[in-house]
């Protein structure tokens, strides 16, 4: 990545974090933010430290993780329409998490693990459904399979919640809407624990993703162990998505919108693209969350609503382009 692009994106990321910290039920001025950064005192310091900072950092990391997952999945299935949400990963992760919560073992460790199992099962199912006529993977069928699996996991989640008792239901429902209102330093810590390794693995797979995007035969002839590379991308995107879903519910389209925009700016090579996608995805979700908190004040919109409003038109546009 050219350094001016990197500097620009770091600037955008920092600006988004500042905006994310300042907006909310109690609006803060840049001066109050500066006072709180500078010294431990000040009236706003507790709000900033205990609520706003963990919230925007979590939104940033989740956004970056979802965006990097989307970019990696797009190279893997060789189609810009891929996204953890559209491919059914998020739905599978959601189902796994709802099962954990409804069954009463919804701890901070178990929910992400169940979400991971659900994401992997959903992805395997989507993959199997889209292998029509032997080994050829038609991306359009893949998207359709993702929609089918998402619908199915959605139905199962509704069924489980309808049959659960009131308190479990309320927890699952609140969580499923998606959002960062429950963010705290411990949730941020858990997310980092689950997300760090897959993020590093995906960044290290940047060149492998370039080759996967060429197709299996060419990738292999250029020296890629295609099976191993695919497995790494599957497991890493599955784990990242699961960690995101487990901490903040189902948020769609971040993995679709951000890589698309970043590719237009930087081109499709993944070594410059993935860090840019991470920064931009983080900034995008922090700003979406800021908008979700302020658009209907004092009520808070689910942040997934905001990302969908941006993502659906772009998806429609990309779909038209793919089909023509």
């Amino acid at each position, binding site marked *: 990545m050219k350094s001016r692009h990197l500097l620009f994106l770091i600037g955008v990321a920092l600006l988004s974090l500042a905006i994310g910290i300042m907006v909310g039920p109690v609006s803060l001025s840049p001066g109050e933010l500066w006072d709180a950064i500078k010294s431990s005192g000040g009236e706003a310091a507790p709000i900033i430290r205990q609520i706003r900072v963990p919230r925007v950092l979590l939104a940033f990391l989740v956004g970056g993780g979802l965006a990097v997952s989307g970019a990696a999945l*797009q*190279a893997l299935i*060789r*189609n*810009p329409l891929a996204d953890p949400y559209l491919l059914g990963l998020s739905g599978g992760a959601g189902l796994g998490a709802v099962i954990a919560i409804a069954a009463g073992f919804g701890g901070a460790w178990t929910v992400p693990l169940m979400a991971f199992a659900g994401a992997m099962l959903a992805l395997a199912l989507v993959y199997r459904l889209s292998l029509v006529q032997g080994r050829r993977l038609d991306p359009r069928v893949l998207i359709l399979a993702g929609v089918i699996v998402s619908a199915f996991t959605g139905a199962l989640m509704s069924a489980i919640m309808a049959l659960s008792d009131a308190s479990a239901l309320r927890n699952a429902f609140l969580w499923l809407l998606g959002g960062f209102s429950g963010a705290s330093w411990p949730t941020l810590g858990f997310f980092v624990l689950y997300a760090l390794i897959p993020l590093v693995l995906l960044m*290290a*797979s*940047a*060149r492998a993703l*370039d*080759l996967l*995007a*060429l*197709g299996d*035969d*060419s990738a*292999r*002839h*250029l*020296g*890629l*162990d*295609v099976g191993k590379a695919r497995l790494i991308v599957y497991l890493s995107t599955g784990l990242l998505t699961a960690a995101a879903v487990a901490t903040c519910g189902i948020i769609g389209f971040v993995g679709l919108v951000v890589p698309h925009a970043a*590719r237009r700016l930087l*081109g*499709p*090579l993944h070594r410059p693209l993935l860090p840019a996608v991470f920064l931009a995805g983080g900034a995008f979700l922090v700003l979406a969350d800021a908008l979700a908190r302020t658009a209907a004040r004092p009520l808070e919109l689910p942040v997934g609503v905001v990302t969908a409003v941006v993502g659906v038109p772009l998806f429609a546009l990309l779909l038209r382009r793919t089909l023509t």
Partner: protein
Amino acid sequence: MRLVASDLVMRYPGLSVPALENVGLRLDDGKLITVVGPNGSGKSSLLRVLTGVLAPTSGTVILDDRAISLWRPDALARVMAVVTQSEEPAFALRVDEAVMLGRYAHLGPFSAPSTTDLAAVQGAITRCDLEPMVERRIDTLSGGEWQRVRLARALAQDPRLLILDEPTAALDVRHEMQIFELIRNLVEGGLGAVIVTHHLNLAARFADQMLLLANGRVAASGTPSEVLRTETLREVFEWPVAVTAWTDGTPQVVPLRTGEIPPPA
């Protein structure tokens, strides 16, 4: 570096007729082998087996005393480059970026390209006549230009063996001859090459050895003069031909018009 395939049999599941039956081939440094034959004669299957993509039903492919299936993909890519018939990348890279992908097997996951890598890419770009278009995106290239980009990417691998499946199918005369001349020059410099092609006459002019396949079997193999014989070609291609000689003695094939009587040899 030596590639030896022996007694290859390839049966695809569900098909009663084998795609390859008792096919052998031996490629040495500094030699160029052309593989010819009608559509469906097993040329592409042979290449897929030779390059380790498909495991043969029986028979062996040995590269430098080791079965091809035992080579790690990255180690194999450092000695053997392959240009397949076609490829549809998902994203539109720039030409120089696409050629740099040929260095994948030489690069670590986080390391930047070294001067050796950059020199290999630059050399490949120059040899394939791509300098005027290095900054263009590959979705703006013609079929022939894209084919040259893929050849350049293969050369950037800095291979000892080069395997090409119809590399000049979409090229005009100048670019086709440039590619054949380029490969022949590399062969003179020690590269081993296998080219699958439908151009019998160019195959004859550039090859040291030829392999003629028909229905998965070897119909003829040897020097171009040994392989390109009137009767053999008529049987294999099911069409009458005449074989004449160019001034340097290489056989040249002229397919006959319906009802045409060939001139006496």
